[in-house]
């Protein structure tokens, strides 16, 4: 079936999958957002232990999604993989280090013989809890604000800023994106507590904190969106790439069903979930986040628009057409992508099977507790 598709359709399909994976990656950050809140939400050891165990049973999804995201970009848009990872070297490296310290920290935090003491592992989790969402937000924002690279005749890339990606932190728009994702991850993290914990005092404290952080998240998200809509952005007109005023607003309104609607509905669901703060509000917030991030990423590259502009050399900007894998690879990988619903299916089964609310008692009795 995919063999008969046009190349651009395959490229759009894969950009769509990458965008969706980006959405999932952002929503899984609820683990990070939540773990960063533990020091301020847990008023006693029992609550602390409960919360570390709560998020400690979900960290693996962040790793798997990040790895799949990397693999999908590698296979479908290898030039982006080469330009971005090899170019913005330190931005990615810091992000990877932030992830490396997460997995072990949950497992080793309370174990006998952990050498450095619980505090160090808790610090690791706090660092990961802030840095991962922040950097992912910054990196998403650079898909609109661009990077300092050139791509030569042999399609090999060179990064022109010696800060190697860290210079992105000096761009206010990127920082706004980073903070927005941090706040979203914290809101989702709190919604997850409301979804899966039954300890009353903890729930009350969470609800109180949720209100303030939700308002901040909405404010930052809205400013990010408004700024994006007026941002002059790289656009492809026939063979050349030019800067166009309000390019992303134009794109969003040009594709109302694929972009504008998911974004508006996503934002609405996120706000709704946050305000309701009930047991199933977590799912509202999660769905909203996936939709919003999907629409944002999709808008950057849809139909061959430059999804990674170069402000060092505009014509080096990456589009889904100039950075994609070959037709054969895209076709093969498209068949592979049909397996994604199966993965989502068994994740859902496991999530359900494991979803009985977590209690202090269970953690005390379970020798496998973190």
């Amino acid at each position: 079936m995919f063999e008969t598709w046009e190349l651009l359709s395959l490229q759009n399909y894969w950009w769509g999958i990458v965008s969706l994976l980006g959405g999932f990656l952002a929503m899984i950050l609820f683990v990070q957002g939540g773990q960063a809140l533990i020091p301020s939400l847990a008023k006693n050891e029992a609550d602390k232990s409960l919360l570390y165990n709560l998020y400690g049973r979900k960290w693996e999804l962040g790793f798997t999604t990040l790895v799949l995201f990397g693999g999908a970009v590698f296979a479908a848009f290898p030039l982006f993989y080469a330009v971005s990872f090899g170019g913005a070297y330190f931005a990615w490296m810091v992000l990877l280090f932030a992830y490396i310290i997460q997995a072990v920290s949950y497992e080793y935090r309370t174990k006998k013989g952990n050498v450095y003491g619980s505090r160090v592992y808790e610090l690791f989790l706090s660092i990961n809890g802030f840095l991962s969402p922040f950097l992912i937000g910054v990196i998403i924002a650079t898909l609109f604000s661009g990077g300092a690279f050139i791509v030569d005749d042999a399609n090999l890339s060179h990064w022109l800023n010696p800060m190697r990606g860290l210079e992105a932190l000096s761009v206010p728009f990127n920082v706004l994106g980073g903070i927005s994702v941090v706040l979203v991850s914290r809101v989702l993290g709190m919604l997850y507590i409301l979804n899966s914990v039954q300890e009353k005092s903890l729930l009350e404290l969470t609800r109180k904190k949720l209100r303030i952080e939700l308002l901040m998240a909405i404010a930052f998200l809205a400013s990010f969106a408004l700024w994006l809509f007026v941002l002059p952005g790289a656009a492809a007109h026939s063979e050349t790439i030019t800067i166009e005023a309000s390019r992303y607003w134009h794109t969003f309104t040009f594709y109302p069903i694929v972009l504008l609607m998911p974004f508006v509905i996503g934002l609405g669901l996120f706000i709704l979930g946050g305000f309701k703060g009930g047991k199933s509000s977590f799912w509202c917030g999660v769905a909203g986040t996936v939709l919003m991030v999907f629409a944002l990423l999709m808008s950057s590259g849809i139909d061959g628009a430059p999804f990674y502009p170069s402000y060092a050399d505009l014509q080096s900007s990456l589009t889904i057409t100039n950075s994609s894998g070959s037709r054969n690879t895209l076709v093969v990988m498209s068949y592979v992508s049909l397996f994604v619903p199966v993965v989502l299916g068994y994740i859902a089964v496991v999530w359900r099977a494991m979803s009985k609310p977590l209690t202090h008692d269970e953690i005390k009795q379970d020798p496998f507790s973190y």
Partner: protein
Amino acid sequence: MDLIDWSRAQFALTAIYHFLFVPLTLGLSFLVAIMETIYVKTGDEKWLKTTKFWVKLFGINFVIGVATGLIMEFEFGTNWAAYSWIVGDIFGAPLAIEGIFAFFLESTFFVVLFFGWRRVSKGFHLLSAWLVAIGTNLSALWILVANGWMQFPVGMEFNPDTMRYEMANFWEVIFSPVAVAKFLHTIGGGYVTAAIFVVGVSAWFLLRGRETQFARRSIIVASSFGLFASFFLLLSGDESAHQVAQKQPMKLAAMEGLYKGEGRAGIIAFGILNPDKKVGDDLPEFYGDIQLPYALSILGYHDINAFVPGINDLINGNEKFNIMSAGEKIERGKVALQHLNAYHEAKKAGDTSGAETALQAFDANQSYMGYGHFTDPLQTVPPIALTFYSFHVMVGLGSFFIVLFIALLYLGMTNELLTTRWALWITFMSIPLGFVACEAGWIVAEVGRQPWVIQDLLPTMKGSSALNVQSVQITFWAFAVLFTALLIAEIKIMMAAIANGPHIAEKGDHHV
């Protein structure tokens, strides 16, 4: 050390750390699944206790394997950006497939295996244990499909317009005989390493007179599994060597320290290399060695009379056996690169017929293009001593493990385990050896492939990102410090958990 050396050093560092944890994950996941199956079949709570003990150790090892594995996926992009573009169209696919088909499976069901004891039914839990085992091993499959392609690239075509190799036949890539042999040999190595780990830890309990029943049953299961896996390892090792002989003759020559090719070639069972030996000189290759006659010809070509080319033959050529010299290949490679360049010039100038002619000329020598980046034939020789010794350490340890498993099984059956303390000591001391054997195997595969990152297509020096050397130095040391710190914690936690013994099930745990 220049950028390439540091980039290689960083990749080697992270891969070696990652590969400390992978073999145990591969093998222990199956051992855990087998033990839990016995528990579910027999309903014997002691097997539950045994299973839980090994699950605990599995978890301690698994998380650090995941943490160190994450970086491997991204390092191709961060440090080998040119590589990622030039071969990413083929190489990226198995990595993405690994994510979808394997990593999600193992991680999702790991949570059930670990935390699901009271939350899901017995059957679901057992199924999860098996899915974790299958997931980890599938993960190895896809990674080794990718690695197999680096050793023996198939199913691709060079596109002179995009300046990269593109996938022509996906099935050739995944069913590459090298990939299949590599996969089987690597998981076999993982099973044996895990079996050595389990018998070693169990021997420690027996030496201290603790948990004797638990330790004995662990030894019986693990040494049966280990012995079975060792034979599997022998067969897949034979096939791997056969593939190396066909596809990477230079690697085989380095593995055996063979300079002067010969028919009816023997295998060096033990040897000390002469460090002064150079390609083409008359110095002896070894200070001393013990050979198994004919074995290399049989192993490499399944023919007792087969000629096995040595390093001299591959560098200087050998007309009798129709082997082209490395110098000739370099010349042809340079011609290919010139024509490729001419093609681009003509295309830019709008000269279609000129471009066409240049392309045809390029095609004639295309297969030597990679060689065109070298200036001296000797550059195409991998580090011989490291490859040779690693290969012999791996094979030597593998043979020792077979003897050890047989001895343990015998002692276990005759009920002499507890009284044969020297055997228990040897078993306990062997714990690190499984890991050493695995790392040695990794070195044979990867160092033996040098100076190529993709055999005969892309020299390692042409694959790296355009980074300055200081950037890589910074991350190299950061990885070295962080991974070492985490490894120390992992080992200490592991030792504490072992010392604690299989008591964890005694808090009144049972399935719902």
